[in-house]
């Protein structure tokens, strides 16, 4: 029996865009995530994935509904909920080492915990690049640093918004394995937004499928495949086909709206 960590209840978020149109980015979304779970959120562009993740992070507030983490309402950003952006979020004026340390410095605990910096550099396999600046390392390395910077604060949950979206497929597979390794080490709860069905299947315990206009959860699939998973195995491929079909259906359902 696992413990409930994150609870999202009837959350709605509406934006008014520059043409004064109402955009229902999220409409009455409910979701719970257990402690230590790996959940992926997948869906077509504009279905509110980023919006949902930002609400969990506390970077945005909903018009209605509640979000709680371990029973505490989420009102503002907190190091207990780490956030990894798609790309380009490392501080360019800090070295790899200092970027990772900035997680500790921001909380004001650098003096007590600085020994963790070397530990995380080793963990993400960037030994030797401590003194490099962000523009001197590759995109894949940069994302590892972003992840380490968030994890060094030992968050209860790590929220990742398409962290591998800008990477080539080799680097991506590499980073996926690294992410699994980090997850199984600390059992940090992971909430991953992705466009990539393979990625979601390879990594997650559950996959949340969303549909746009208004942003809603259409289906939640539990993935029972044993780990380590093989991307070419029959069951994996069958599930992949199933999810793709659901995604197509999901976008087909919005087709009429385009016609209006």
């Amino acid at each position, binding site marked *: 029996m696992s413990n409930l960590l994150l609870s999202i209840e009837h959350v709605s978020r509406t934006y008014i865009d520059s043409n004064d149109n109402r955009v229902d980015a999220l409409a009455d979304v409910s979701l719970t995530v257990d402690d230590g779970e790996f959940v992926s959120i997948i869906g077509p562009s504009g279905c509110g994935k980023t919006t949902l993740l930002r609400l969990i992070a506390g970077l945005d507030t909903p018009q209605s509904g509640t979000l709680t983490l371990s029973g505490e309402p989420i009102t503002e950003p907190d190091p207990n909920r780490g956030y990894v952006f798609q790309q380009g979020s490392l501080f360019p004026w800090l070295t790899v080492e200092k970027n990772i340390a900035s997680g500790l410095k*921001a909380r004001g605990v650098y003096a007590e915990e600085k020994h963790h910096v070397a530990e995380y550099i080793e963990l993400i396999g960037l030994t030797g690049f401590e003194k490099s600046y962000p523009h001197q390392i590759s995109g894949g390395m940069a994302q590892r640093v972003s992840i380490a910077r968030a994890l060094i604060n030992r968050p209860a949950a790590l929220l990742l918004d398409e962290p591998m979206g800008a990477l080539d497929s080799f680097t991506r597979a590499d980073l996926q394995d690294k992410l699994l390794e980090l997850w199984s080490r600390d059992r940090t709860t992971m909430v991953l937004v992705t466009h990539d069905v393979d990625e979601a299947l390879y990594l997650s315990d559950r996959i949340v499928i969303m549909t746009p206009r208004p942003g809603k959860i259409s289906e939640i699939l539990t993935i029972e495949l044993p780990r380590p998973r093989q991307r070419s195995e029959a069951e994996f491929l069958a599930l992949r086909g199933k999810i793709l079909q659901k995604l197509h259906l999901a976008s087909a359902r919005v087709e009429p709206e385009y016609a209006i």
Partner: protein
Amino acid sequence: MSVSNQKADSKKRFVLYLCVTLIGFVAAEVMSFALPNTQGLKLKINPHVADDLAYRVALAGLFLLYLGIGIFSAFRRDRREKFIKRAPFRLAIGLLLLTWDLLASKLDILHLPFFPGPSSVVNVLREEPLYLLLQTGFSIRLFFAGFLSGVVLGVGTGILIGWFARAKYWVMPVLKITGVIPAVAWMPIALSVFHKGFYAGTFLVSMCGWFPIAFMTAQGMANTQKTYFEVAKTLGAKTPYLLFRVALPNALPNIFTGITTANGLAFTMLVVSEMMGAKGGLGYYITLARQVSNYYKIYAAIIIMAVLFSLILKLVNFIRGRVLIWQRGLINE
């Protein structure tokens, strides 16, 4: 075989360019000895000719300096290339000195008092070395007092208006209007408010830094990507961290642009305030020299200023390179 040939060729080429570099100064030295000085002989009051010693020592000094640089550069390819590239220009310096010496000191085609020969100018260093050093010291002191306070005030004001919306609302328009007024315009007021010339000068020089630096600081902070703030917040950062460790570092490249802009203005202001208000400094020295028509001293002071200001610019660039090391390779120099 061909490699060693190439090496020998490159060695020969370097020696050739070393000679090119030095030959101008040798020629100037030869000229200084070859003909007698005639400029100043026909003066009605106090006819005299310039003493060549300081000029000759200076030429020998330049010769040794470039010889030293040549030897230093000989052992590394990139330095050799740089040295070779600069050879024609250094040759030109030597030839220019020679021509100046010839036209002024030797042939008296350029007349006193407006166009003294190089020996008269350099000889100032022997006539009153301590006095000149003292005035240079005054200038350095005024510059750093004024400019550093300008940087501090500028960055401080910039942080205020870059961070606090209310401060921006009230201060920004004031800054925009006062910023276009050349600092010199405040001179009479500064002189009567601060009775000592040094304080007036400090104030005026600092004004040159204040506005451009405040403006650039505020702009650099305002341009900070939203992502950086959001990342910092999810890491647990509070306002001081967001301000001093996110927005301010983000503004550093801008701040240095402001500092470089302000530098030129500050040099101008420094000299003007010394010429008009202060009781010391190279500008003051020029004013004194002018009153008694000692134009050769003005040239000497100008040359010292050129060297001094170039060194200050070099220092600022050095600091900039150090502070903005994270930008190296990110932007085109």
